[in-house]
């Protein structure tokens, strides 16, 4: 399958890239990992007139933690995340997610930032970032702004990014002591999108009560879902079985899946309940609060 013809641009700086985007407008798409965009172009579901390839821009491929934030540059690949010792030890939720996205070959090119910017409700990082309370840093011709992740996904395949803006960095607040996270995905086979998946991030107080809970849901609605009522049902409480089960039910109620080849909506909603329970128990254990 051959994509429609396009003009190719390989800017060497973010400024050059945003200037190109401003000039080319809606005709242009950003090419980073390309693992969602190129298949769409080959199927002619997307036929952008211009591709702005940001892979040659230096300084966008770092994973680092400083001043209370984890910073993931726009060109960090899923495999970089998967192999990072910092991510494995400090951000187990992201480590979990990085191992179940697409397949190992795709992960060598696919970027974390692209997984967010593409805004496919079936993508895995949106739920993870919702659970973690991340921010997205966007740069446009007018400068830089930070967008809280809860306001980033505006619809299916739609985000708060303007056409002339580039997502240059993801910022995740560093977890306080006694934190734990987990991503639990139900998939039919490696490489498939989730039938349903749940991201959980917990922070416990010194007495073992839950101080903060973040819960994100994958592929069970037109956009990624932040299960706010389930989160509220955990905050300030000890996470005993009854509390976990109640939060899991509330997460299922927050989901809005539809019937497709992966299963009927009723099944998926119940899977959200089951997966939320599993993710909460795993996150709790990792936070050191498991019994």
């Amino acid at each position, binding site marked *: *399958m*051959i*994509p*429609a*013809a*396009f*003009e*190719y641009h*390989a800017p060497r700086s973010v400024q050059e890239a945003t200037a190109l985007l401003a000039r080319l407008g809606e005709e242009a798409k950003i*090419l980073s990992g*390309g*693992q969602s965009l*190129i*298949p769409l*172009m*080959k*199927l002619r579901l997307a036929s952008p007139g211009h*591709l702005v*390839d940001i*892979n040659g821009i230096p300084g966008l491929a770092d994973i680092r933690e400083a001043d209370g934030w984890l910073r993931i540059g726009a060109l960090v690949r899923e*495999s970089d995340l998967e192999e990072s010792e910092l991510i494995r030890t400090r951000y187990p939720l992201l480590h979990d997610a990085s191992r179940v996205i*697409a*397949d*190992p*070959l*795709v992960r*060598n*090119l696919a970027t974390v930032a692209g997984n967010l910017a593409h805004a496919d409700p079936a993508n895995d990082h949106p739920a993870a970032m919702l659970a973690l309370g991340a921010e997205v840093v966007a740069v446009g011709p007018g400068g830089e702004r930070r967008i809280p992740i809860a306001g980033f996904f505006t619809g299916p395949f739609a985000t708060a990014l303007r056409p002339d803006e580039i997502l240059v960095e993801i910022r995740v607040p560093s977890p306080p002591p006694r934190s734990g996270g987990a991503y639990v995905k139900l998939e039919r086979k*490696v*490489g498939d999108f989730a039938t349903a998946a749940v991201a959980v991030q917990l922070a416990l107080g010194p007495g073992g009560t839950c101080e903060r809970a973040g819960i994100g849901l994958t592929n069970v609605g037109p956009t990624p879902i932040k299960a706010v009522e389930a989160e509220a049902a955990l905050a300030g409480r000890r996470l005993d079985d009854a509390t976990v089960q109640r939060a899991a039910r509330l997460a299922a109620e927050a989901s809005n899946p539809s019937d497709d080849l992966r299963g009927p909506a009723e099944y998926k909603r119940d899977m959200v309940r089951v997966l939320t329970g599993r993710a909460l128990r795993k996150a709790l254990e990792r936070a050191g609060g498991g019994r």
Partner: protein
Amino acid sequence: MRIQLTVNGERQEADVEPRLLLVHLLRDVLRLTGTHIGCDTTHCGACTVLLDGRPVKSCTLFAVQAQGREIMTVEGLAPDGGLHPLQEAFIAEHGLQCGYCTPGMLMTSYAFLARHPAPTEEEIRLAISGNLCRCTGYVNIVKAIQHAASRLRQGGS
């Protein structure tokens, strides 16, 4: 667009349309037809080549993105016309039937063994989970990779 890249250690230049996929550059322009096109939809991994040492699906990358990069295809495994220990192991363990997935399997396992010289079976299965084989059921492919790993550890090229 004029691009320059290294393929199996040789400098190559080509004049390409931006929409030309890397796999088509390799097969149709450079006539390296060892790399197969399977599903053409980023699922099967038959077209796997190494991009600066990392296995990627060459049907999901534009040739222009390989500007200045190093590509290795199955033809690069054993440049002297012989066979690489991995290829010999696939023969010894019957790691193929129709052989269509084999170039991709070889490239993925080559990159994998370079980083994980003594893998467990589970690690091998995870590493090749982006390469589909419709014949073997994978059992003999896993055995072939284990066989190659032990030969390579003993110092086979």
